[in-house]
């Protein structure tokens, strides 16, 4: 873990990091982009998860919901990752030591695992349930876990702003 800390210290001392941190405008602009990107990424991902739950867009085939939404979800993901990296770069040591940031990072990891489990699991038999309004149990589980995990990521993301706990480093 000392490696991460040293990396964060080095990153925080680069002119790029200092420029974002000390600028009046850059941080608010990047953060606003991050918040609006949330609507695109989590908002549309939620519709996909709700289709997996068999709750919404029931009349549209699962494969079609995926094909139509994925370009926008991907665009949202790119916006989130890029703006998120810039926010992290602005003050790496503080983020690294923030307990909510750690929970958020772990939540992101679990959400990706959940997506992979879906991809290598029930999605392989998609032809059997593609057009059914009601979805199989495994698909419902994947959708439910996804919503719960992304909700944790969003909420802990907001809480990163608070320094209630002593830094972990």
């Amino acid at each position: 873990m000392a490696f991460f800390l040293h990396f964060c210290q080095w990153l925080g001392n680069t002119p790029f990091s200092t420029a974002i941190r000390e600028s009046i405008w850059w941080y608010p602009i990047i953060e606003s982009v991050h918040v609006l990107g949330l609507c695109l990424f989590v908002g549309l991902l939620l519709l996909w998860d709700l289709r997996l739950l068999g709750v919404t867009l029931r009349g549209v085939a699962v494969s079609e919901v995926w094909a139509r939404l994925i370009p926008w979800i991907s665009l949202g993901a790119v916006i989130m990752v890029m703006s998120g990296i810039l926010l992290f770069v602005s003050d790496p040591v503080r983020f690294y030591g923030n307990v909510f940031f750690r929970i958020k990072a772990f939540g992101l990891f679990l959400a990706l695992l959940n997506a992979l489990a879906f991809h290598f699991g029930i999605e392989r038999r998609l032809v059997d349930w593609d057009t059914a309004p009601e979805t199989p149990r495994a698909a419902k589980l994947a959708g439910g876990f996804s919503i719960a995990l992304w909700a944790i990521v969003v909420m802990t993301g907001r809480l990163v702003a608070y320094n209630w706990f002593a830094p972990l480093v």
Partner: protein
Amino acid sequence: MPAVFQWIEHSWLGTSVNNSLWAFAAIESLHLLALAVIGGAVLVVDLRLLGWVFPRQTVAEVARDARPWLIGSVIGMILTGVPLMASLAFSKYYTNEAFWLKMYFFLAALLFTFTIRQRVAFGDPARANSLIGKTVGIVSVLLWSGVGIMGRGIGFY
């Protein structure tokens, strides 16, 4: 008006949120979660109006499926937004220009969504798919983005 804001801040709701270490942050996290839901429910219909998503479904079909989530998230936004605002109604929000701009955008977005956009989305499919529908989609995205940007602006003002 200032008296109303002072009263809200000193009400049970305002003082409870303001005196708690956790309440504001916890409610704000839920407010952000509702933003994600509203974002999806609004965007999917606007993208459909623009013809950029679900081209094989009608605008009305997409709007019908998004509707409960739109209404639910607007209610969630108001239920979480009111205690946030109440906590410092007079000492912060009343004098915060970003807050007022956000409220104007919010009112405009609500009115537009539940009158003009709703009519176009559920009305004549030819009109919904025409330049009128596309214009409605763009106006809707701009109005709701204004709400989000000004909301973020409150903290920086």
